[in-house]
């Protein structure tokens, strides 16, 4: 049986693409959309329930993550609101330990203290693996007594795009 070899190597030994093959293109897209409604008062990161799996085709690939969700804040004790969100990769927060990737801050809300907004978060990750990677969206409030509602209206969407590097 004929064996196709690249630069005299078997396919299992090929770890990078020849220079003539263009890179920087999207190799695959995985998306998760759901009405997975959630509510937390946690001041440390917990799962929103939004998660997906993707298996990169090369260790050099990057994974571009995008997330959006309708979110509502409710605060019983404070007029100021802080929330933080992050991406978790295989059980590890890949953002800043305390602050994650991004957050939301609102100063001196009224006494009603219900505040809705659309929340977005993006990140270009370098997982450096060809094994399956599980990404989760996590979030937390900053102050005890505050609550956030994830996906209060409509769908939340998490999308992962493999960028061939």
């Amino acid at each position, binding site marked *: 049986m004929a064996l196709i070899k690249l630069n005299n190597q078997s396919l299992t030994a090929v770890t990078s693409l020849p220079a003539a093959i263009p890179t920087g293109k999207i190799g695959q897209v995985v998306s998760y959309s759901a009405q997975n409604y959630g509510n*937390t008062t946690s001041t440390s990161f917990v799962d929103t329930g939004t998660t997906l799996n993707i298996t990169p085709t090369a260790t050099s690939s990057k994974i571009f993550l995008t997330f959006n969700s309708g979110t509502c804040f409710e605060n019983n004790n404070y007029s100021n609101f802080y929330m933080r969100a992050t991406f978790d990769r295989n059980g590890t927060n890949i953002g800043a330990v305390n602050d994650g990737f991004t957050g939301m801050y609102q100063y001196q809300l009224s006494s009603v203290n219900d505040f809705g907004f659309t929340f977005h978060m993006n990140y270009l990750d370098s997982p450096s693996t060809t094994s399956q990677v599980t990404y989760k969206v996590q979030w937390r409030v900053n102050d005890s*007594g505050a609550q956030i509602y994830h996906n209060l209206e409509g769908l939340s969407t998490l999308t992962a795009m493999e960028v061939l590097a």
Partner: protein
Amino acid sequence: MDSLQKFGKAVQTLKPNVEFVAYDKMETEEDFNKVKWVIGEENKVAITTTTNPHSEITWKLLKAEMDKL
């Protein structure tokens, strides 16, 4: 106001500043038993349990508070 919003308000009434995460709905004791209660943290990631550590918060008391809302 839906059941999860009522749940959040009722918890705060029974025991302020309790930390939890809940999903989907809060209509039965079975839903209540799925609540993840925060009992600690490691590197700012929550450590949770579905075993309710708060004696002040029972399904019966919670349901009574939710029904007032």
